[in-house]
């Protein structure tokens, strides 16, 4: 049984507050990464992809009891609400589940410099999840997936499993993380952040760009006019190092193989690979090995990180959403920031926007803790 359709979606990032605003900019290869000189986030200037605060202030004005929600919760509410305007889903049903994907949630509440009025207990991820699912009158205990940078892909895979096994009719999967001082200072201490906008797979790449985003998909057992299915998924662990990728790409390759097998597709029929592509030297090297091992080296591939940075818990979801628009519009988006190939084994990195058939997509993610995940999306 395979009937997990993606029936509604939203993306919120530096590129806009809905999916069509994002698609418009993806077609023009327009990045949202900008220099940031905000000493409350980091003592020295850095590059980041940030959500437009003045637009958020305007957008959130009609959220009921808006002051009872943190910035990240407000973004989740706006993101889910946009999805509800596209599909008729009964959120008050026992057969509808909320799944949240985040690495750090309301981590800004931990800071002694936090000035908002929200209780510190909402730094607990399940408290954040409950505040949002209750806002939408959902009666089921929400689930939080917090598995580093693969959280979004894992959450979508789990939603697919729960629909296909008949446990739920609809699953709202919503992911978000802020460009918080906590996260930026941590990645800076790792020397993982590039001084320039990130350049996945490029010869001169030297690190990530942090981005903030919130993105939602609703998966349903009913097509509701959609022809995009989450067909298969898989995950793995490198069992090699907690903060460095595998040297061989074995873990990522195994996760992809499971997703491809479950999705009942042939590797050679994949039209597009939406890769993780953080633009650290070692991550992109590892991916080049895994993808050559899998045999997708000639298939058009991109990383969306050049548009909105590494959005952590939102990454898997926003990149799956962007991929579904690739499929619906039959177009391939440039891998922003990429100029000259700089990985040990070659890949077909998309160097310019183009129209092309996109029926089958492989989406991947890898993260701290040695984890990898993959999803196969299929157009009926």
């Amino acid at each position, binding site marked *: 049984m395979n009937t997990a359709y993606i029936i509604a979606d939203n993306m919120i990032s530096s590129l806009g507050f809905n999916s069509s605003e994002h698609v418009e900019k993806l077609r023009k290869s327009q990045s949202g990464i900008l220099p940031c000189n905000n000493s409350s986030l980091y003592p020295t200037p850095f590059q980041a992809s940030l959500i437009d605060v003045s637009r958020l202030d305007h957008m959130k004005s009609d959220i009921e009891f808006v002051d009872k929600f943190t910035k990240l919760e407000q973004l989740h509410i706006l993101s889910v609400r946009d999805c509800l305007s596209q599909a008729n889903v009964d959120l008050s049903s026992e057969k509808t589940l909320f799944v949240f994907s985040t690495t750090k949630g309301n981590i800004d509440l931990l800071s002694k410099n936090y000035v908002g009025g929200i209780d510190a207990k909402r*730094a607990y991820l399940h408290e954040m999840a409950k505040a949002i699912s209750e806002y939408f009158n959902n009666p089921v205990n929400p689930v939080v997936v917090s598995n580093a940078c693969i959280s979004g892909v894992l959450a979508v895979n789990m939603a697919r499993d729960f629909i296909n096994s008949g446990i739920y009719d609809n699953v709202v999967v919503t992911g978000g993380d802020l460009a918080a001082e*906590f996260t930026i200072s*941590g990645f800076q201490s790792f020397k993982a952040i590039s001084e320039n906008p990130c350049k996945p797979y490029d010869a001169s790449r030297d690190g990530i760009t942090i981005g903030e985003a919130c993105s939602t998909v609703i998966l349903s057992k009913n097509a509701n006019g959609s022809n995009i299915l989450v067909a298969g998924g898989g*995950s793995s*662990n490198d069992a090699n190092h907690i903060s460095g990728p595998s040297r061989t790409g074995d873990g990522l390759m195994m996760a992809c193989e499971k997703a491809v097998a*479950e999705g009942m597709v042939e590797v050679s029929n994949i039209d597009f690979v939406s890769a993780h592509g953080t633009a650290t030297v070692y991550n992109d090297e590892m991916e080049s090995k895994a993808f050559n091992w899998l045999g997708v080296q000639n298939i058009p591939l991109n990383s969306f990180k050049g548009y909105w940075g590494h959005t952590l818990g939102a990454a898997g979801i926003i990149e799956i959403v962007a991929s579904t628009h690739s499929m619906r519009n039959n177009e391939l988006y440039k891998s922003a920031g990429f100029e000259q190939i700089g990985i040990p084994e070659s890949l077909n990195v998309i160097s310019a926007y183009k129209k092309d058939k996109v029926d089958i997509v492989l989406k991947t993610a890898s993260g701290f803790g*040695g984890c990898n995940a993959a999803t196969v999306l299929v157009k009926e």
Partner: protein
Amino acid sequence: MSKELSILAHSVVRNSSISINGEKDFTSSEQDFKTFIKEAYRNYDLKYPKFFKMDSLCKLAVIGAEIAIENSDLAEISNDRIGIVLMNRASSLETDREHQHSIDDRENYFPSPSTFVYTLANIMAGEIAIRHEFQGENMCFVLSEFDIDLMQQYVSNLFESGKIDACLCGWVDFDDSNYESVQYIVGENSSKNITFDVCTTKEIYNVK
């Protein structure tokens, strides 16, 4: 056709004591977690120096996993077919507070990569994976309490879809010196083992 699944072994770590398959195996008079877990490390003779670099959540997870794994026969199972599915309540908040403390004051600003890497809940799964070379499915949930129904559904799905042949499951939580680890290995049926179901898992969890 669903496979018959069993709990091959289980471990419980709480209140300075450790149980294996329901029997008390190690008790310390030491109430302080850091001292207790060091004593447990020596008692079980892990010989794993990396242990001392870990944060408290990972130390708790690694000790609890070690005991459950040691008491399960996984020799016939390929490492890429062994999954790890963990849950907790406080994510990595204990170490999050430590990292936050290092950046709260611009005059005394000392963020450190060796702390920051532990500010993710799933690092405990990564540490267990490295120690035992488990390369199968990974999942880490953060929930208000140990959701035994969710664990049952999620892990059963992984077996039914043919992605795993065994799974380390558990609730491993550490928050402000309160801690609790309940871990168990699920695998295919053998006569001496107990059935993997919600009722049995509740019994394991509720033993004082």
